[in-house]
């Protein structure tokens, strides 16, 4: 609850409007009205784009979605468009998500805890802060090169001796590194928003820093941290460029159609975004419909994750006002 009320808030701006009207001397503000229309047009254009995009892919993919959705979701890749399905891509995307959650989440939160709770102001902290900010701006395709060098080539005996290193492990770890800076930045922001009184109360009763962080700071910041992670997860699930470099399969794949088959982690894989990229290049209306249907599935997954994160954040923000 804010205790202060600024004079401008009294009467919900009605007073301001009245004063404004008097000062204008009753003249119409043509330029102002025009400016407002231009601004509205800008935001309407952005929204229109979103609507057209969703409408376009749904209509394009409707022939597949309406007739064989179940089949489409549970079938493997195939050379015939009417038999092809996205099961293996869903498995690949699922495992990439698992890697992001298991690797980036703990690592990112720990790094954020260091930066916000433990680090003293100084040169070393500044350098870490700067590198994280810069890593967040590195193009995803460059992370693909990193994954190719480290996971596919250097660590091949671990990531997949039979698949030439072009395995789910390589893909998952590359994606985990790609979103790590995003997780750190959003987690650090949520930790920064925790009132310092909470920490001081903890220290006042003799708790160590870690006890304060574990027992009070992290629980308080948890919703914000979770929101950041979900957004990062959504980003990882939709990213295709690095996967192309770490060797996502194009064309045909016989394995990788079991969700919980750990041995498949070292095998070749395909994921939703690369499958879409691959299918988009196939000629013919049937592949086009398949591509659009796959896009609809990916959009449902990614946008649902986004929507959950945004709603969660708004909910907690309004509760803390």
């Amino acid at each position: 609850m804010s205790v202060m009320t600024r004079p401008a808030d009294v009467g919900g701006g009605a007073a301001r409007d009245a004063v404004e009207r008097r000062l204008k001397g009753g003249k119409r503000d043509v330029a102002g009205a025009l400016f407002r229309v231009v601004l509205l047009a800008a935001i309407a254009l952005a929204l229109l784009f979103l609507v057209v995009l969703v409408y376009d892919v749904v209509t394009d993919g409707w022939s597949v979605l309406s007739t064989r959705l179940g089949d489409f979701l549970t079938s493997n890749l195939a050379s015939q468009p009417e038999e092809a399905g996205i099961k293996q891509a869903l498995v690949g995307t699922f495992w990439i998500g698992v890697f992001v959650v298991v690797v980036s989440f703990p690592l990112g939160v720990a790094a954020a805890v260091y930066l916000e709770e433990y680090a003293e102001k100084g040169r070393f902290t500044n350098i870490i802060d700067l590198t994280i900010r810069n890593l967040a701006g590195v193009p995803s395709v460059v992370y693909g090169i990193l994954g190719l060098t480290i996971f596919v080539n250097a660590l091949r005996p671990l990531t997949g001796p039979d698949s030439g290193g072009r395995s789910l492990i390589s893909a998952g770890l590359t994606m985990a590194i790609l979103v790590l800076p995003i997780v750190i930045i959003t987690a650090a922001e949520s930790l920064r928003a925790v009132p310092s009184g909470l920490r001081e109360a903890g220290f006042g009763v003799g708790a160590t820093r870690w006890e304060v962080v574990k027992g009070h700071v992290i629980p308080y910041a948890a919703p914000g941290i979770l929101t950041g992670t979900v957004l990062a997860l959504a980003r990882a699930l939709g990213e295709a460029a690095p996967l192309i470099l770490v060797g996502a399969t194009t064309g045909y794949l016989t394995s990788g159609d079991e969700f919980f088959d750990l041995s498949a982690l070292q095998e070749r894989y395909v994921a939703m975004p690369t499958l879409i990229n691959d299918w988009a290049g196939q000629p013919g209306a049937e592949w086009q419909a398949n591509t659009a249907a796959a896009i609809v599935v990916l959009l449902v997954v990614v946008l649902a994750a986004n929507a959950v994160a945004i709603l969660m954040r708004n909910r907690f923000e309004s509760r803390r006002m």
Partner: protein
Amino acid sequence: MSDLTIPPQLTVADLRGDRRRVRKDAGVRYVVLAAATMSIVISVLIIGSLVGEAWTFISQVDPAALWTDGWFPRRGMYDLRTIIVGSLLVTIVAMAVALPVGLGSAVYLAEYAPRRVRKVLKPVLEILAGIPSVVLGVFALRFISPEIVQSIFSDATQFNMLAAGIAVGVLSVPLVASVSEDAMRSVPDSLREASYGMGARKITTVTKVVIPGAVSGLVAAFIIAISRAIGETMVVLIAAGGTGGSLFTLDVTGPGTTMTAAIASQATGTDQVVGEALTFQSLFFVALLLFMITLLLNVVANRFVRRVQERY
């Protein structure tokens, strides 16, 4: 001697509590420090993995091959001009879309929108930000190219840089909007009130007080958007049509390629790269170039963001 004097045997260590708890805290400190240091390790790994092969490329390549008619690495033609100019063209088109739309949306959200409208519109813009770029790439090829580009330029090819640029612009709109909106919201209300107090209209207040006050943040938004556009891969790869390489061109209604798409398109099947021996190494060189360009842009943008924070 009064009772209040501290017994001489009591030291700071006694006030620190249980040894085990303190030791645990110190242990955690090292763990989180190690996690934070990962960011430096990753940066070093990125540079390390790029520099080696990039050096092999630049020391072995025939300098004449860097200035030819086009970018066809499998035929030994590494015309850097083609992909750098391609990246520039796509970025210019993208910014022509993203800057006016993003800035307009930001001004509306920050200065005009009633609270309730803002509460709905902002999440919707964020949803637009969440659309995977591969989806926008397909949309650029199947919708923007035939319905928008080819209906304006009748001689445009199916794959063209203009459609790709427009889609990259759409991708950047939410980014421009959110960074600019933050910048304008950090301009203190007292400045607006002073302007109204002088009898200024809303449009005057916005264009003469708020926007100049937030200019560093707006510049930062533009630079971040440019960096994002240069780094965008999938849209260009799918819609611009330079998968096999591209001739040098300044015509955006025709096919072309960018630095990012050049990397991704040659990487399909990296194990069995056919043709010229340096194809594989050229990817690393282009990636290093891309890394340095975006790094420079990000450093500059961060400086502008900090300037806004320091000012208010």
